[in-house]
């Protein structure tokens, strides 16, 4: 009995080692596959999140953008007042931004701002036909433009949404 048990333990040990090796191999292959993905290429319809150059930040996250555009957060990390500026309602980029950042539909967003007004007297962010101009001019302003509409040096890019 003792020798049979020992034999079984050895077999289990072999199987365990084989399983570990197999899993490791799969993970390594997956990693290679991930690494082998096509490099990121800039496209004209990339949405650039741009901020006024006076704001002393270099990058942001979608969650922070959401908090700023829903006016849950009012300041940048450097203390500058954050001024979210939307593209005009109905524009393609506004819809894309809403989908990628706030996750709301148009009617849900309207309902959200009606609620905010009744609760806190908070107005929705202003809209501007040329967000690039607004971001260039307004200290603390943040908005979004397609890469094809962006001009170097006008504002600071802090995030790219693809």
């Amino acid at each position: 009995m003792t020798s049979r048990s020992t034999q079984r333990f050895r077999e289990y040990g072999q199987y365990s080692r084989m399983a570990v090796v197999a899993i490791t191999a799969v993970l390594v292959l997956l990693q290679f596959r991930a690494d082998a993905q096509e490099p990121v290429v800039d496209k004209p319809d990339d949405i650039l999140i741009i901020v006024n150059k006076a704001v002393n930040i270099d990058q942001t996250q979608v969650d922070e953008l959401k908090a700023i555009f829903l006016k849950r957060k009012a300041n940048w990390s450097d203390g500058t007042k954050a001024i979210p500026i939307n593209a005009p309602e109905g524009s393609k980029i506004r819809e894309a931004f809403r989908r990628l950042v706030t996750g709301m539909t148009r009617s849900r967003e309207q309902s959200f701002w009606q609620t905010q007004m009744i609760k806190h007297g908070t107005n929705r962010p202003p809209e501007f036909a040329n967000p690039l101009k607004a971001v260039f001019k307004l200290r603390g302003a943040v908005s979004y433009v397609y890469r094809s509409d962006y001009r170097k040096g006008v504002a600071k890019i802090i995030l790219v949404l693809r």
Partner: protein
Amino acid sequence: MLVKWIPYWCVAMLLFTAPVRPQAAPQQEQQPSNGAPPDEATQCDARIDALTKEMTELKANEIAEFKQAIEALQQQVEAAGEDSLDDFGELDELEMLDELGGGSGQGPEPIEIHGFYDLSFFKFMISDDSAYAILAPSEWSFIVCQVNLYFTGQMSSTLHSLVEAKLAFLPHGMEYNTASYGKIGDTLFDSGVPYERASTMVADPHLTNRFNYGSVTIERAHLTYSPYDWLNILAGRFLTPYGIWNIDHGSPVIIPVRAPYMQLREMVPLAQTGLQVFGRFFPSYSLFIDYAVTVSNGRGPIEELVDLDANKGIGLRLRVIYEGEQLELAVGGHGYYGKYTDIKKASIIELNPDLTINTDVDTPLRTQIDVIESYGEYILSGDLQISLFGVTLQSEAFWRLVLYEKHGLKEYDFVILSGAAASEILYHPNHIAWGAYGMIYWELPLSKWIHPVTITPFAMFERTIQEDTLPGFNFDLIFAGLNIKPSPYVVLKLEYSRGIPHAKTLYGGNADIAAAQLAVSF
């Protein structure tokens, strides 16, 4: 620029005048190599040429310096990005702010006006002789309760102003008193209190037509200074930052038609006049911690205008909010201590027997202030809101301790409801009030078919112990209904509720209420 050239011109003029002749000699001495006698005019020309050359060199140096400066400036301009903004054209700041509309926070902007109103249609399912008929009409009635207007202004990036004014037909129709009778056997005893109902009817002196005037209530009026997310300072009249309902407070936002009794009976002061410091911390962008500290006149008969005691009402609010992909969770707590004081004033004049002022005393004219009622109140409240896959559970609870310093006199109906004889003189005792409600609502996942219309069924239970010493005022309420939103700006509510008094024998049973409401925001 010209000033810089003055020394050179002076030197040039000096060279043109006095030194011309003496300096011509050496030039003449150099000329013999040509073998021709030097002409005086030629010498002058040569000298002028030399000086002009010298000045040209000096100019060239200056120009080089200017060029360097211009290049440096151009580099700065390029760095600022202005070189690529030519087609933005001339941009006037105010013009741009006009285009931006409100909320840019960059300067004075036009006041924005928003608001909401509602039309309700309801009926108490009671007989005309029911005790509940004293509270509400027993016939189907339309009622426009309120029109709330919001005036907001962003004076600068850190200064924001809000005024919320409520327009109502009140006090028109308010019943100050209902006549009351005691009945012993077949004999009615009149309490002597007449039935009184307010009427605000007036007649236009010119056209002679009659109309009922209404009233304006200032719900909120405050200025907020917001330098940081974690620090905002608000001064004015504000909604007490407790719970969920009191902040939501507008009919287009709250789910049922009727507010819970803890709101209607103001178990926590709904609004206060004073200061509030509040803010938000971000442990992460999906987790917020909100706080608020309030200092105000506290509760009082005229607290909007005057604090009738030296104590200020103090409040502390804490709330933690998590917003995930599918789960939203908010847990809050609020504590409040304040003192209620009511007074009456009397003028006292020291008189002589002939009713003239007695000037022999130090202050013949004085004011006497008597406290007629005073109590301290300690209030704790908590709130919870969980949303998961469109289903939201919302709950609030409060506990209130009232400790009298000067007990107020009980009205005779309170005396009778306390179980005492109507002839007895009783005072309001120290008491505890508490209550809670729980509401569940579910926005049906029908957006695929009926977008943007939303349909939200809801159910709610509430228990309110208004005074633990007065069981006749304690109720349970059950609500159920439907909330239909055809657009983000319009809500139609249908609701059926049942009031269950704890002293059922006193009221003769439950009271059912059917209600509908159309709430509109703009």
